[in-house]
């Protein structure tokens, strides 16, 4: 079976490293197993490290900077970070307007669309808009017998 493209947003990426109090840790991590087996091509956006770091440093977690740096370094070793093109950003603006999303949300959806990729997210706004799917749903498809 050819590998499918998957774009992961920051809400899923963080679960690769953190488990306590998290939903959907197993399916989020199962994506990495499929990635290791080359069943999926996994990418994040160049925006993702900023989102991950911001959430850890400035959110209620208040994680120390040196630990955040280790997580960012690990993320860079796991999967490529892609930069949205001008066309992606134009699409993102339209999606943001149509679905009342922030441009940060919409950028993930636009990059996934342009690549014919699945967007995996646990962000309620992206899930409600129908632009992204839960890791559990994507993993279920990957493990379903053909």
């Amino acid at each position, binding site marked *: 079976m050819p590998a499918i493209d998957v774009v992961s947003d920051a809400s899923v990426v963080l679960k690769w490293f953190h488990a*306590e109090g998290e939903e959907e840790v197993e399916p989020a991590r199962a994506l990495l197993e499929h990635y290791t087996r080359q069943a999926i091509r996994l990418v994040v956006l160049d925006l993702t490290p900023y989102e991950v770091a911001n959430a850890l440093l400035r959110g209620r977690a208040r994680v120390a900077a040196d630990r955040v740096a280790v997580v960012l370094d690990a993320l860079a070793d796991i999967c490529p970070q892609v930069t949205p093109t001008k066309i992606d950003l134009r699409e993102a603006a339209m999606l943001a307007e149509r679905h009342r999303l922030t441009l940060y949300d919409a950028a993930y959806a636009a990059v996934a669309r342009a690549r014919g990729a699945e967007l995996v997210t646990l962000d309620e706004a992206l899930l409600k808009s129908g632009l992204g799917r839960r890791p559990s749903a994507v993993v279920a498809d990957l493990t379903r017998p053909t």
Partner: protein
Amino acid sequence: MAKVLISMPDDLLERIDREADARGSNRSRFLQDAARRELGWPSGNALEAALTRGREALASVGGFESARLIREQRLVRDAGDRRR
């Protein structure tokens, strides 16, 4: 980010520029994406080592739901952008 000087046939460079332009991208981004595709997947060992490092760094930070943290930060940034 490093800047590199590489040699390439003129016709190939022309094709790259044409395709990058058609995608609303540019030469650097196009070549970065192509290199990533060519390099493919990290080794299982490299991925496992990276995960172990990241998990150890967050081992004692306590419980939280990442999706909620990310949502809060996106809304904070969005509100800041609206005020500009």
